[in-house]
């Protein structure tokens, strides 16, 4: 029994099964026969994660909660009408502050969002999260996810009650961006866990002669029909410009506005704004190059409606 032929037979069978699974998943991707298995796992484990996070969530939020009570009270008064459907008792103060800033950002950009809670986070080498809304809340893949600070990521897979979000800091995520002010166009790619400080993005501007400066802010350029990224969402700020070298592109490191390590309330953009909000969504205290804030789009479409998911 300790190490018999039977043990080795079982080991061989299991290894072969694992390799077959890996091969199937590697070759066929979304069309593989494993998608059924995946959706099964998503529904089962998603529900379980939602249930568990109901218990563990308040504990986690206690660690991240902040803000004086007076501030919280005023913020609560401001957003009372916007979160009509959010059950008050399920929200901690930190959550309501996050939701308030989320709604403000959505209002500035004219994004129609559905609010959600983060209930789980992904494996060691990937920056992915699970949120507690899914297909029954109207979420579809390739929809932009943001929070009160800026761009969070994009929805990759959706199950009935949960959805998986690929964060912008993941090494496989690339977002088209535009530099606020100068209007230069580039792309940011997540660095994953490759940089020790963590959570940085690498910006490549499609111009060898571009003069990048630290402090410049980035917004999303926007994809066709707002998928996977809607336009105008704040992404981050340049922290370090790298020597161009022989590359045709200027490179810089970008610190995202969103701290991916402490995500709480996020919003999924279910309908893009009718007009491109340009730089209007950026935070009001800009650095060296103050972004012009076109007032034309402000307020015209800013009637976001927030609904909450049933929360698993």
């Amino acid at each position, binding site marked *: 029994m300790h190490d018999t032929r039977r*043990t080795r037979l079982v080991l061989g069978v299991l290894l072969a099964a*694992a390799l077959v699974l*890996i091969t199937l998943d*590697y070759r066929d991707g979304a069309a593989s026969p494993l998608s059924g298995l995946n959706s099964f*796992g998503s529904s089962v484990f998603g529900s379980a994660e939602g249930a568990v996070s109901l218990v563990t969530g308040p504990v986690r939020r206690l660690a991240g909660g902040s803000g004086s009570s007076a501030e919280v009270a005023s913020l609560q008064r401001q957003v009372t009408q916007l979160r009509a459907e959010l059950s008050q008792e399920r929200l901690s103060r930190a959550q309501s502050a996050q939701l308030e800033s989320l709604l403000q950002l959505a209002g500035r950009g004219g994004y129609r969002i559905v609010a959600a809670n983060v209930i789980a986070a992904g*494996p060691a*080498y*990937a920056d992915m999260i699970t949120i507690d809304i899914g297909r029954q809340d109207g979420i579809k893949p390739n929809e932009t996810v943001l929070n009160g600070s800026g761009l969070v990521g994009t929805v990759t897979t959706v199950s009935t009650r949960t959805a*998986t979000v690929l964060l912008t800091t993941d*090494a496989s995520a690339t977002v088209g961006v535009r530099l606020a002010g100068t209007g230069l166009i580039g792309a940011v790619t997540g660095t994953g866990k490759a940089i020790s400080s963590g959570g940085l993005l690498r910006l490549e501007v499609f111009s060898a002669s571009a003069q990048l400066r630290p402090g410049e802010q980035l917004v999303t350029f926007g994809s066709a029909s707002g998928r996977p990224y809607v336009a105008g969402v704040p992404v981050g700020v340049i922290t370090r410009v790298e020597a161009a070298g022989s590359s045709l592109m200027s490179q810089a490191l970008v610190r995202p506005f969103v701290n991916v390590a402490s995500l709480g309330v996020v919003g999924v953009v279910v309908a893009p704004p009718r007009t491109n909000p340009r730089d209007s969504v950026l935070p009001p205290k800009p650095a060296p190059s103050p972004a012009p804030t076109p007032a034309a789009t402000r307020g015209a479409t800013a009637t976001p409606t927030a609904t909450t998911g049933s929360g698993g």
Partner: protein
Amino acid sequence: MRRTALLAVASLAAILIQLTVLNTLSLPGGAAPDLVLILVVAIALTGGPTQGMLTGFFAGLALDIAPPASHLVGQSALVFCLAGYAAGRLSGDLGRASWLPLGALALCAAGGEALFAAVGMVFGDPGVSWPAVRQVLPVSVGYDLLVCPFVLYAVLAVRGWAAGGRLAYGGGRASPAGAPARSVRDTGAGRSPRLRAGAARSGDGWIGGAGQRAGRAAAQAFPSRPLHLRLRGGQPGSARGDAVARTFAARPVHMRFGNSRGGSARTSPAAKARPVRPVHLRLGGKRRPGKGLGGKGLGGRALGGKGLGGRGLGGRGRGGRAPRGSALRRSGPGGSSLSGGGPALGSGFRSGYGKSAKPRFRRQPSRRKALRTKAPRGLGGRGRARFGRRSRVWRIGSRRTGGLS
């Protein structure tokens, strides 16, 4: 059935805790302990390779399809399966020092993390780049080390609770393979498990009883620290380890460790003391039969005190499962079998008697402690069968060595 359910529940709980709590904690260093991997390795260390790799495969598969997973389906299953198998293989050889099970747990966890990263790199996962591995791997292994003792403690406690007094620890199944003597042992002290900093005496286990009832039951079922050798007519199955205490009531054999001088068992041939019929007593020689006790050391009563390493016999339950159809059962219908009186004598102690041999070994009680505490690992230690390979048992049968000298 109950054990399967328990393993499934434990794995699911570990997966959910991993995904909803540990991964969202954003610990410094950008990594988190891999609770599922540690649990799998701990289960394998206490339950053996089959249990370990089955648990690892299915827990890994569940982790692969649980929502925020981006890696390939089957990747964790592969890695955890291998880690469980490796830990199960290691588990038979860890009773020597108090830190060995924890060291093996940490080793297997680190190996599993590294293997996971390697598989990710092989399949071109964009997140698993070399700088990322250099960042994440040491940190996650460090967190794993922190979590290891607690998980092992929990696994032992749950095992003790689930055994409900029927089995003390480990390998669960009431198989004829006998009492599972894993590396993480139960001292049968009848108390709740506790981590002990170190084994003060060499006979001590480093983890206390796995639950109260289980501990008492273990103390009763395996009074194993003193050596009991019982002789019985070698009907098939009589040598099974778990049945020893009950079925071998017929005729006790007293072993006598006559010569206590160091190395005497090794050097002096035992021809003088050999009984009339040859006795083949095999103390788990590994590669060199001449060094094992069966080769030269054991004459009828010339078990050298030092040669018969006290650790191999006197209380270190070693690899306690004799494979079915081992040498113990090959002594023929009229022959006799010699078996250990519990987990103390396991795969490290294979014996086969000639036909109708009736050796009388008498063991001097006063020397028992000295054997246990001071004996080097000369024969019992070195010659111990590490993993209990069946082929070895076949090879070192009486036919080939032709006796003891």
